[in-house]
C-alpha cells in the first residue's frame, strides 16, 4: 500500500524532529569548538563568527592527543576483540549445555556486569601496581573486558539459542567436529549478534572514564581523560574540550557505520518469530 501524502509528510516531519534532537548536541559541539575563547559564552549565543581552528591546534600541540587517540583505539579494539573471543565461546557453552543450574551460572556471569565500578577501582589499582601494569593499555583492556565479557555472553547466548541445534547435528553428520561446527556453521549465523556485541563493547571501552583516570598516567592516557584534563582548578577550557569531544566522536561513528549492516539485523533478530 502506498503511503498517502499526509503519512509521508508526518514520516518526514518525525525524521526531521529526531534528527534535530540527536544532531543538535553534535552541532553545538562543532560550533563551540570553532569559536574563539572570548566569545564562547556570548549572549545571545553567536552562530555567525569567524571560525578558528585554534582549539584543534591547541589540542594536538599542547597535549599528545594523536597518541591518546591511538591509546583509546588500542584499548577499545583490544578489549572488544578479547571480549568477543571469550564471550562468544562462553555464550555458546551456556546456550548448549543442558544442566538444571546453567541459568544460575548465566546469571552469575551477568552479575559481574552489575559491579559498581568505583568499588573495584582501588583493588584493581593495587593489583596492577603489583604486576607493574599501571599506565599500560593492557591494564585497561583487562578491566574493560571484565565488564564486556558478561555483556557479550548474554547478548550472544540469545543469538545462539535462536540457531536450531538440528543444523549443528547435520554438520556433524557431514563429518564436522564440535569446533568446526561452531566456527563454520553456528558462528556465521550469529554475525549480527557479533556486530551488536562489538559495538556495545567498543562504545563502552571508548567512552569509559573512571578506570582510565585511575589506572593510567601520561603513557597510556585515553581520550576521555585527555579531554577532561582541560578542566583545571581555575578554568574549564571549553573550546579545547569541545574540539576534543568532536574528534573523539569520529572513530565511534566510523565503527558503528561499519557495523551498521549487521547491526540493524542483529537488533531486530528474533523480534518476530515465524
Amino acid at each position, binding site marked *: 500500500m502506498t503511503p498517502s501524502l499526509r503519512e509521508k509528510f508526518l514520516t518526514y516531519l518525525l525524521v526531521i524532529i529526531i534528527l534535530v534532537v540527536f544532531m543538535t548536541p553534535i552541532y553545538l559541539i562543532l560550533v563551540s569548538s570553532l569559536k574563539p575563547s572570548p566569545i*564562547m*559564552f556570548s549572549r545571545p549565543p553567536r552562530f555567525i563568527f569567524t571560525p578558528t581552528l585554534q582549539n584543534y591546534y591547541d589540542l594536538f600541540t599542547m597535549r599528545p592527543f594523536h597518541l591518546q587517540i591511538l591509546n583509546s583505539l588500542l584499548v577499545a579494539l583490544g578489549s572488544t576483540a578479547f571480549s568477543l573471543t571469550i564471550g562468544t565461546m562462553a555464550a555458546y557453552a551456556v546456550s548448549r549445555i543442558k544442566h538444571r543450574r546453567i541459568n544460575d551460572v548465566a546469571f552469575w556471569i551477568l552479575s559481574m556486569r552489575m559491579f559498581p565500578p568505583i568499588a573495584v577501582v582501588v583493588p584493581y589499582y593495587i593489583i596492577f601496581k603489583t604486576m607493574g601494569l599501571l599506565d599500560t593499555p593492557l591494564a585497561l583492556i583487562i578491566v574493560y573486558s571484565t565488564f564486556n565479557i558478561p555483556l557479550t555472553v548474554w547478548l550472544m547466548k540469545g543469538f545462539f539459542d535462536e540457531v536450531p541445534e538440528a543444523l549443528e547435528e547435520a554438520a556433524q553428520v557431514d563429518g564436522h567436529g564440535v569446533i568446526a561446527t561452531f566456527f563454520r556453521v553456528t558462528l556465521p549465523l550469529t554475525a549480527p549478534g557479533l556486530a551488536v556485541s562489538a559495538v556495545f563493547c567498543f562504545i563502552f571501552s571508548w567512552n569509559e572514564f573512571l578506570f582510565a583516570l585511575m589506572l593510567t598516567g601520561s603513557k597510556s*592516557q585515553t581520550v576521555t581523560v585527555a579531554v577532561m*584534563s582541560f578542566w*583545571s582548578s581555575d578554568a574549564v*577550557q571549553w573550546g579545547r574540550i569541545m574540539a576534543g569531544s568532536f574528534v573523539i566522536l569520529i572513530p565511534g561513528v566510523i565503527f558503528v557505520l561499519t557495523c551498521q549492516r549487521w547491526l540493524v539485523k542483529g537488533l531486530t533478530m528474533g523480534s518476530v518469530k515465524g
Partner: protein
Amino acid sequence: MMQWKKTMWAAGAVLAMTGAAWAQDKPFAGVELKMLGIGDTSVTRVAPIVGEFEQATGIKVHIDQLPYPGLIDKIIVEASSDSPTYQLLWVDSPWVGMLGEAGALEDLTSRAKRDAAEIGLDDIIPIQLQENTWQGKLLAFPASGMVWSTNYRKDLFENPEEAAAFKAKYGYDLAPAKTWAQYRDIAEFFTRKKGEKLAGEVLDKDFYGTAQAYSRVQGAITHDYFPIMRAFGGDYWDPKTGLCAMTGEPHIKAAEFMKSLIPFNPPDYLGLMWDLRTGYMERGEDAISSYWSVRTVRLTNPAEAKVAEKGLVVGYAPSPTVDGNPQPTYTGALSFAINSKATDKEKEAAWVFIKWATSEKLMRRFAEEGQGVSQFRKSILSDPALQAKYPYYKVLLESQKNARRRIFHPFYQAVEENFGVELSKYMAGETATAKEALETACNAVNSQLSIFPVEQRLRWINDVPAEVLAK
C-alpha cells in the same frame, strides 16, 4: 713510554676529579620523578620548561596533567600504595587537611627551615605558607597564590553621568564597594535592560550588575558564599564540639544577602560556576564581581578576556566587608607537595624541583613574560614596574596583610558538597528559608563528623600555625 704513562695518569686524574665535581654539583643526576598535576597555570607554565631543570640538576621530571574532578581521588589511591608512581603531587590547599590527616604528604618543615635563605622564605606571603600546613607541619609549597578580591568596570565607575546618577540615587559617591551593602547598591544600579543607556551608549543586550556563582555543581556556590559568610562574622565550626556550626544569624544573613543579589545576576545564575561567572567580567558584561585572583590574571590578557581586547578598563579592589573596616581576606593556594611514600632520594630530588619551580627567579620570569600566574611573593607583587603592568598586584599584596586561611578541615569536601546543594536549592526557591537549607547541610556534615571523638574534632578545627612561620 714513561711520558705516555704520565699523560694517561694525568688524564685519568682529571677525569676522576671532573666526575666527582659533577656528582657533587648534581647529586640527584639520573633521578626520575613523576608529578600528578593538573592543567592549571601553576603547572602549565612550568611544564614546558622542565628540560631547563633537568639540564641544571640532572633530575628528569615528567608531569601528567589530569582533570581537576577526580584528581583528589587519584591522589588518595596513589597514597595507598607503598611504592608510588608519583613522587610529586599538585594540591589545592583545602585538600591539605584531608591529605595531611591521611599521612599522604611529606612534612616539608625542616627542609623549608634548612633552605630558608635559598627559597626566600621571608619573601613568601605568610598566609600562602599557612594555607599549606596541617597540625603545625608544612605539607605543601605554594606555586600559585589565591586571594578573593573584587573586579569592577573602572570605565563605568569613572563615567561622569553614571557617577552623578549613582550619587543622586544612593546619596554617596560611586566607588569600588567597601561594604557588601554598597556592593548590592552598585549591582542594582548597573543592572540595565536592552535598549537602556549605559555610559551614554544604548545597550544592544541586557547588562548585569554582577555575576555570582549559584551553581551546586562541585560546590561552586560555596566559593561565593563563604567570603560573604565570614564577612558577616560567621565561622565554620563550633569551638566547643568541633561540629558544623553554620546555622547562626551571620550565616543566615549571608545566605539571605546572597539571595538578594539574584535580581542583578544573569538569568542563568543557577548554572553559573567558576569560569562561567567570571566570563561575564571577561566579556565586559557585568559591573562588579568578586572572585579568586587566579582568574583575575586573565583580565589583562586579550587572548583570554574580551574586555582587554575591547579596551574596556577593569579596576581591582579588596573584597567588601560588612562595616567597611578591614576584615580577614579569604585566601587559598595551589601548591606542590611530595608523596610521603617516595624514597628518601626521590623526596630530596622532589624538594629540589619544588624550590626551582616556585623560585623568585622563575616567578619573576613568568610575570615579565606576561604569563598569568597568581603570584605569592612579596618582592614580585610590590615591584613598581610589575604593578604598572598588572594593576591587581597591589590589591593582592595589600589584601593579604590581614588574611585568614580558607577552610582546611579533613571534611572539607563534605562541607562543599552539602552546602553546595542546599544553598543552591535555597537560591532556586526549592527550600523555603536559609535557616532550613543551612540546617540540612550542617546536619549532613555532622552525621559524618559525629562518629569521631570530640578531642579529634577539636584538634582538627584548632589547627596550630605552621612551625616554619613561628618567629
